[in-house]
């Protein structure tokens, strides 16, 4: 932004804040420093349009209306009570919490927004020291390219279309969604909304969106139903822990530390001339457990239950034949 433009925009804000009357564009052109540079009417209108958009993008509440006088022209003003941040005063421990909150995001969209908020809090007189180390620092990352466009669509209240890849059964299909929000649950991002094709609420993993997210339709059409809790919806859709199962394994002596550290040794047994231990283990995800145990190869064998032994056996069979 050129110095002249920055100066003009500050002057415009100061002028519109100081007036109670709505100022017509021509009046603004005549009195606000910087607009006199516009050589033609058309150049002025282009310049003024750009400036108005810039102010609105920053969240400045630009009002357009008419004064209550006869044959008054419509014009612009900024209502001070809508412009100004309310009074705020933070205790040192509250300011420390804010400093930590600002550091939460590793995200092009949200890091900038949090920094913008911090700037305004500081301008309101709040002292926030960002150098203070925290004992625990949570971090939330947004790396999916779909995040920005989806957040923008949610905020604008617009519907979106995107190609979505479901892994199993494999399928790539275009989805049409009225997005209610983007949700991070256990480190993964989802978008929740009303799926127009299914005519039902659905959530989608951002990492499975292929290509661009296209927003369409008028802004303000989509809004989240008040009774929907986004986070609850996602955590319910992604499934909670299945019941735990106790399994019995044989593990070779001094091997499979990852299995042993969670297990209790209940006996000894030599198999294939290799000494080892019989261990018992509580499993929380029986599905992924088969992969975990199969990964240890000949160092870990399933004794029971039979269904787990079979699953592991099948995986090893496939791996043994796969690279012939």
């Amino acid at each position, binding site marked *: 932004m050129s110095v002249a433009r*920055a100066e003009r*925009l*500050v002057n415009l*804000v*100061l002028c519109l804040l100081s007036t109670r009357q709505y100022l017509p564009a021509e009046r603004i052109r005549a009195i606000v*420093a910087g607009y006199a540079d516009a050589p033609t009417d058309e150049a002025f209108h282009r310049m003024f349009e750009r400036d108005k958009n810039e102010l609105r993008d*920053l*969240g400045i509440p630009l009002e357009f209306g008419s004064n209550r006088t006869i044959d008054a022209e419509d014009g612009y003003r900024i209502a001070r009570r809508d*412009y*100004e*941040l*309310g009074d*705020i005063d933070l205790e040192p421990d*509250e*300011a*420390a*919490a*804010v400093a*930590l*909150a*600002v550091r939460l*995001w*590793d995200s092009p969209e*949200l890091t900038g927004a*949090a920094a913008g*908020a911090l700037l*305004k809090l*500081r*301008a*309101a*007189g709040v002292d926030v020291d960002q150098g203070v180390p925290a004992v*625990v*620092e*949570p971090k939330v*990352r947004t790396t999916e390219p779909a995040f920005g466009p989806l957040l923008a669509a*949610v*905020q604008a209240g617009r519907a979106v279309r995107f190609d979505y*890849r479901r892994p*199993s059964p494999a399928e790539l299909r275009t989805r049409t969604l009225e997005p*209610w929000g983007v*949700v*991070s*649950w*256990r480190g*993964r991002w989802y978008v929740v909304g009303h799926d127009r094709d299914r005519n039902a609420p659905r959530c989608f*993993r951002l990492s499975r969106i292929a290509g661009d997210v296209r927003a369409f339709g008028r802004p303000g059409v989509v809004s*989240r139903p008040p009774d929907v809790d986004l986070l609850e919806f996602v955590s319910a859709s992604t499934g909670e822990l299945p019941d735990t199962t106790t399994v019995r394994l044989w593990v070779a002596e001094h091997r499979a*530390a*990852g299995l042993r550290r969670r297990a209790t040794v209940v006996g000894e*047994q030599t198999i*294939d001339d290799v000494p080892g231990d019989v261990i018992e283990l509580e499993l929380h995800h029986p599905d992924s457990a088969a992969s*975990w145990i*199969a990964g240890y190869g000949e160092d870990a064998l399933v004794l029971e239950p039979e269904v787990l032994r079979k699953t592991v*056996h099948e*995986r*090893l069979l*496939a*791996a043994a034949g*796969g*690279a012939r």
Partner: protein
Amino acid sequence: MTSAQDRLPRLLALVPYLIARPGVRVDEAAADFGVPARQLRKDLELLWMCGLPGYGPGDLIDLSFEGDTISVAFDAGMNRPLRLTGTEATALLVALNTLLEAPGVADADAVRRAAAKIEAAAGQAQPAGVAVGLGVREGETTARSRRVVQGALRAGHALRMTYYTASRDRITERTVDPMRMLIVEGRSYLEAWCRRAEAVRLFRLDRIDDVTELDEPAAPPPYAEQTDTSAGLFRERPDHEVAQLVLAPDARWVSEYYPVEKVTELDDGYLRVRMRYADESWMVRLLLGLGGDVTVEEPTALAHGLRDRARRALSRAGQLAVTP
């Protein structure tokens, strides 16, 4: 966001900021705004040229400089910062909410008070469209480790711990100098100087099997730097091996869970990826667990190693069937 786009928000915040802190030093203000002192001086010079229509001596913003300090003599009506935008309020308030959920983070009471005050000051700019659930699952052992680690961080003491290294499937004893705790993608980590590795390491809390606070000060060397988590936790190194894999639809999760590159979509939902790995035994465990859902195209040695290990496991499992 480019620096030019950052300028207008800064210009609008600067006068209120100075009013709240009469006599603040230029370098202090520059640090609060995150710009060099040189840039801040340019901003002040620009503001000095701005004011209300008429632009006479009594209409312009008037700043007084005394040595290295600044005060505001006339603000031209810009005495409060601009309200928060919806995105700014969202970024800050969702972050504060997330802190409440993170085990052991900050003072929950202070976080709640800060959030209430910001919500009140933000007025109509209420958080919308983004929700975060860390969903940290913490078993009893991990909760205990966390308490010990936090105690040591507060007291500035070193730790002695038994740690499971998943990449090598080994359990080791280490003495570490704790630096901070992080929560990244729903998992808790201790960042510490490891005296054994003589380097900064991130230790997953759920892989600490036992930990004791020592009666000696934590002394990470001055050159121990905090890990930058913005690009994820996996650090690419030149000595990493690269495997080329074809993932079946049921194994596509690997591409979402581990950093992969050169992703090519194949027919029927299959995916070809290149994946870096630091430790071959770890890679073999992962691939063996995937059974027939993965094909190793490169390197050949990895493919053969995998097949041989699967065959040995099958043969030993066969022995198990005949062992009384």
